[in-house]
C-alpha cells in the first residue's frame, strides 16, 4: 500500500516539477538549451521512476498474493500510528522550536533547555545529571566552535 501511495506522490511531484520547469523564463540570448531543459529532463525521468515503481509494486503484489494463497497465510496489515510516532512528531516540533529560538534566545540558553528536555525524556536518571550533561556539552561545544574554529555563535539574551 505504501509503495502505491509513493508512486502516486512521485508522479504528482514530477508533474508539478515539470510544470514549474516549463514555466521558467527563457532568455533570447545565452546557450541553446536555456535554464528549462535540464529540469524538464529530470522531471521526465522522475515521472518514469514513478510509473516504474507502480509496475514493480503491481508485480510484487501479484507475486505476494499468489504466495499467500498457496501458503494459506494472510497478508500483514500495516500498524496504526502509535505512541512512538507521537513522540517523534513532538521531537520534530521541539527541534523546530529550538531552531527558531537559536538566534533570538542565543546558542547557550536555547541549547541547554533543548538538550535538557530531550535528556529528561530519553535518559531517565536524576534530572540534575541530565541538566549537568546538557550544560557541559553546550559549554564544550561553545568554546570549541567560538574559540578554536572562530565561528560566531548567537549570544541572544546573555549578551556576551
Amino acid at each position, binding site marked *: 500500500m*505504501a*509503495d502505491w501511495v*509513493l*508512486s502516486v506522490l*512521485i508522479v504528482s511531484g*514530477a508533474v508539478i*516539477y515539470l510544470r514549474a520547469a516549463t514555466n*521558467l*523564463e527563457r*532568455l533570447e540570448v*545565452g*546557450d*541553446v*538549451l*536555456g*535554464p528549462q*531543459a*535540464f*529540469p524538464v529532463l*529530470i*522531471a521526465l*525521468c*522522475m515521472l*518514469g*521512476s*514513478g510509473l*516504474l*515503481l507502480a509496475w*514493480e509494486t503491481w508485480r510484487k503484489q501479484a*507475486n505476494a498474493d499468489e*504466495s499467500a494463497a498457496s501458503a494459506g497465510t494472510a497478508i500483514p496489515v500495516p500498524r496504526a500510528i502509535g*505512541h*512512538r510516532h507521537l*513522540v*517523534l512528531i513532538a*521531537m*520534530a516540533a521541539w*527541534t*523546530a522550536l*529550538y*531552531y527558531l529560538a*537559536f538566534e533570538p534566545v542565543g*546558542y547557550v540558553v536555547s*541549547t541547554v533547555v533543548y*538538550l535538557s528536555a*530531550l*535528556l529528561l525524556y*530519553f*535518559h531517565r536518571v536524576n534530572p540534575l545529571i541530565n541538566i549537568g*550533561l*546538557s550544560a557541559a*556539552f553546550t559549554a564544550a*561545544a561553545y568554546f*570549541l*566552535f567560538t574559540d578554536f*574554529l*572562530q*565561528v*560566531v*555563535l548567537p549570544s541572544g539574551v546573555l549578551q556576551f
Partner: protein
Amino acid sequence: MIDSWHGILHGLTIAGTPINLFYTLLGVFIGTMISHLPGIGPSAGIALLIPVTFGMNPTTALIMLAGIYYGCMYGGAVTAILINTPGDAAAVMTTIDGYPLARQGRAGAALSIAAMSSFIAGTLGVTALTFVAAPVAALALDFGPTEYFSLMIFALSTVSALTGESLAKGIFSTTLGLAISTIGLDLQSGRPRFTFGLVDLQQGVNFLAVVVGIFALAEVARMAEGTLEGTMHSVRLKGRIWFTKADWKQAFPAMLRGWTVGFFCGAAPGLGGTISAMLSYAAEKYISKTPEKFGKGAIEGVAAPEAAVNADSCGAFVHLLALGIPASGSTAILMGAFIMYGIQPGPLLFQNQPDLVWGLIASMYVGNVMLLVLNLPLVGLFARVLYAPPGVLLVMILGIASIGVYSLETNPFMLFVAHVFGIIGYFFRLLDIPKAPLIFGIILGGKIEQSLRQAMTISSGDATVFLKSPLSAALLLAAVAMVVFSYWAKRKSVTTMQEASAQPS
C-alpha cells in the same frame, strides 16, 4: 623518473626539519579532529585556519594546511562508523557498512580497517603523485564537456548498483537529488530557479546540511524509536578491538581497488572524494561474491571507499601542483592559500619552487605515518562512544549536528534545511528508498547540467555530439549496459529467492 627521485629525497630533507615535522603533526591532528565534527569539512577547516598561518614560512604553512586536508579525509570515517554521521561528505559511503559493523559490536574492526585503508591508499597515492603526476593530468585534460557529461551519466548509472530491492526507488532518489541541485541561481543566465522567492536558496541547497539531515537527524529518529521500543541498547565491543586476519584478507584487495578508483577520480578535476568513494563502493559490490552482505556490515564496504577517498585527495594534488587547477572545493581553498603567499601553482612550480613542491609532497609521506600512529591506538577509545546510553547518544548527536550545520554559513536557515532533510531521511528509511543516490544526484547535478549545456552550445544544438566522440559514446553505452545488468541481476536474485523459499524445508 630520476628527477622525481632526486626531488623526493631533497623534499624529505625539508619535510624532516623539526619545525616542519611539528606543523605536519599539528595539521594532521587538527584535520582529524575537524573531521569528527559534522558540518566542518576540509574546506571549512582549511578556510578557518588560513589566518592562523599568516607570518609563517610559506612551505611550513602549506605543509600544515595540506595536513589538515588529508587529515580530514582520514578522520571522516570515525563518526560515519560510530554514529552514522559522516564527518565530511566523502565519508557518506563509509556509513553504509561501517555503521552496521559498529552496531554488531565490531566498531574497532571497522575503525582500524578504515585507518589502515587510509594509510595504504594515502602512501600509494603520494608515491603515484611523485612519479606519474604529469602524465595522468595530461590524460584528464583530453576530456571536454561532451566526455565529462557522458562520464557523469556513467557515474550516475552506477547508482543502480547502490539501490536496494527496487530500481524505481533508486532512480527516484537520484532524480530527486538532481532536482534539488537545480535550486538556486542558473549559472548561465543568472536567473533564480525554484527558490520560492527565498534569498537563502539562491546559492542552492547546502550539500552538507542535506547530508547531516538525511543521515544524522534521520538516524536520531531511528535511535529514538529503538529507545522507546526498548530494542536500542548500548553496544559493547565484541572480540578483538582491531581487525582479524579474515577481515584483512577480505579488505586488502578492496583497498587496492579503492585506491585505483580514487586516484584516477582525484586526477580528473571536479569529481571529488565523494564520487570516488561511491564508484569504488559500487565496483566492490558488483565484483563481490556476496553482494547481499553490502549494507549489512561488509568489511570491504569500509575498506574500498576509505582507500578511494584518501587516494583521491592525493590525485587532487596532481592537478593542483602540476597544472594549477583545483580538483575540488578543498583544493580550491588550498590554491587560494598558495596564491595568498604569492605562489602560482602550475607546471612552472616544479622549476621555480622545488623546495616547496617537493617538501610538500615529502611531508605527505610523513603525515600519513603520523596519522596511522595517531589513529590506531585511539580506535578502542573512539569505539567506546557506543558505550553511552542510546538516550544520551541520540541527544548528543542532535547537539553536534545542529551546531555543525549552523556553523556552515552561520545562518539558521541551514538548520531548517537539515531538519526538512532529516524528516525526508526518516521517510526514506520507512519506505526503503536508498539515500546514497540522492546525495549522488545533488553532487553531480550542477556539473552534469553545465557539461550538457556547454557541449550543446559548442555543437550548436546538435545532440549527436555525444555519439560522435568515441570516448563519450563508449561511456554512454557502458551506462546503458550498467542499468540493464543491474535490472537483470535484481530480477535474477528475486527469482532465486522465490525458488529457494519454494523448496520444502
